[in-house]
């Protein structure tokens, strides 16, 4: 078993209203950041796990996303990084 640090992004699914992202976009505009056209806000989850290898770590985290970390009805997830820790 080795130790891995896995980072996951959970994001609102395309087409789903993201009121938080909208509020932040608007706030950035009013702060003068006019170039902002779109903001989406999701979660950045960093897990430390034990697994035989990186591939297994990835698979394990995918399963966690399916079961717990992401809401299957409204969110998509992506494994951003898997690194030895």
């Amino acid at each position: 078993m080795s130790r891995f640090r896995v980072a996951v992004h959970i994001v609102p699914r395309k087409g789903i209203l993201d009121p938080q992202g909208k509020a932040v976009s608007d706030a950035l505009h009013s702060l003068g950041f006019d170039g902002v056209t779109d903001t989406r806000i999701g979660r950045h989850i960093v897990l430390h796990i034990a697994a035989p290898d990186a591939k297994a770590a990835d698979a394990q985290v995918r399963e966690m996303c399916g079961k717990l970390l992401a809401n299957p009805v409204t969110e998509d997830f992506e494994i951003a990084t898997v690194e030895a820790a």
Partner: protein
Amino acid sequence: MTSAPTPRPGDPVITPALVAEHGLTEDEYGGLVALLGRTPTFTELGIVSALWNEHCSYKHSRTHLKTLPTKAPYVLQGPGENAGVITIGDGLAIAFKIESHNHPSAVEPYQGAATGVGGILRDVFTMGARPIALLNSLRFGSLDSPRVRHLFAGVVKGIGDYGNCVGIPTVGGEIVFDPAYEGNPLVNAMCVGLLHETDLIRAAAEGVGNAIMAVGARTGRDGIHGASFASEDLSAASEAKRPMVQVGDPFTEKLLLEASLELIASGHIVAIQDMGAAGLTSSSAEMAARGDVGVSIDTSKVPVREEGMSPYEILLSESQERMLVVAKKGQEAQVRAILEKWDLSAAVIGEVIAEPVYRVTEGDRVVAEFPGSKLVSDCPIYNPPAKEDPGVAELRARDVHAIGELREESDPRWTLERLLSSPTIASKRWAYRQYDSTVRTSTVLRPGDGDAAVIRIRNTDRAIALKTDCNGRYVSLDPRVGTQLAVAEAARNVACAGARPMAITNCLNFGNPKRPEVYFQFTQAVLGMGEACLALGTPVTGGNVSFYNENPRGAVHPTPVVGMVGLIDSQKHITRSGFTTEGDDIVLLGEPSDELGGSEYLARIHDVVAGAPPRCDLPREKATIDALLDAIRAGAIRSAHDCSDGGLAVALAECCVADVDGTIGAEIELSKWSALPLRALLFGEAQARIIVSTPESATVLDLARKHGVPARVIGRVRGRAEGFTIRVGERVIRTPLDRLARAYHDAIPNIMNASIAELAVLEQHPQPSGA
């Protein structure tokens, strides 16, 4: 411009399969073709499928709902509008309505419940009323199941986050756990608003030339049912993934609420309506039908959130936090200015026209056109066969006395604690502690303080009492009686808080109406509701029907939830449910009887749902309420609590331990009824019973006699150290209070707080949860 609509490039061809996917029967489709005199376009099919579906058309319920009593001198607005309205004097009125969000909550509990609250808030503020209170009536399966815990936790958080953010206190409700709701949770939300009678506004389009405006949030592809029906014809897999779930934005709702009330007060508009179920389609068609005018709408002018939306999608989208407004001609700019002040957009998307048609264009192209208001009026009406399920008749006839007692029951304390810790009876504080119940600083009785919530009316000495009720088990065993009892219990509960029951709204949650046994339940329930409302003088001012609450394992208990509003003339009369003062006499209004059918006792201890529900004697219910209110007005009552789930022993224990801030003892003497089977005496659910505590029992007994209500002193409020004692002849049942308190208060937290996974999932919601 009356060229007949032509199919849009890319529209799917109308085939029998497509028609079926839109939920129209062959006959209904035939009716549509006859109405148009031609084949409908895809857009027209979508419109009709939305308007003629059960939710919008009430096609299976309309005939029966018409039989409900709806009138009283104080009813300003009965059924047919976004909410009912009653006057409470001094030019003030109360608007109120309950609605279901069962199906969305089953799919996505958090958003489903949240958007349910959003919708009911809009129904109330579009009447010109400022929302002042929210309630909710919830049904779930057994908390033993992780999925149910997930649903429960999600629904509660969704309700809380939405109402808390908008700043409307959630003050009451009920939560029932029963395996009958395992696959189909019920989530009914009620909103109550306050208005000046002169601000009452209705949702009828009027005035040829007036502008129709879409205000509030932009329209996205959320919740388009048609999208799934037609997904084969629309493109690939990406489309199949298209979200059906609507996400609520309570922040926008708060802005919309303020902007709408300002709009209504400004006099620049003639009508306003929520774009709720079936979105723009149903709001515009209903407003046109109510005003008996034509409308023309250009979907290309609707502000959208996503590119490339078709008229079909724009018309059927259920994006939240949107309103349809009819602005007075020439005053559109003022309307826009008010919305801009609140950082919201408003766009003119059509107008009221003289020609009696409902027309939708996309730019210059006519994509849908229906003659007159036939779209709404020609909706089919069904009255399918109704027949009782013989199995239910058998259950009802079953002799429940024959059910033997468990060994543990030889100690009634065991049974009492089991019942107090039954999730249906136990304290719901785990849930309502997540609801801001004190914002607006008018909540006099918060959840848990009384049998009903009480909100004072500022600048008057009056207050209103609010409660939702329904025992679905009773209704399942005898729909007519069970529904009468739901009305009676709601009335009793508001009376216990010191209020005269005034009027109800209802949410009729049933299974598939095409099944005769379900339709039987429905028709009987409506019959019983009408009878009870007449007898108790509480007309029905509106409501909602939710059919198809079933899955392959069966239908939910028929659950006609009653939302009652009561009026308290003087704030001095506001009455709590728990005992307050050592030495007070405890009086029982009404009397025990040998009735165990349909009880929580049988369900919880014996896992049995059988027997006839308790008898309902409506004149007796009325007399008991009148006697109680007279005693309250005479200043003789210190607390009042009705007997419901769990019966007399449970109700008495609740009076001692329900207050989280401290328990108080009681000594009870029930020997007068020692001839009754002990379990029926302690845990039977005979109706029309209220426990009061009083320093003047003579006055109470006297008033009861005057109303012909049996009443007797059954004990005395004692100090905390003296515990809880019931004597029945030779038997003495004595329990320390903290055992009862723990059973009552810890049951739900013990289950939920151990359930980390469910809670952690919820925490993932990127929703506001500030202050």
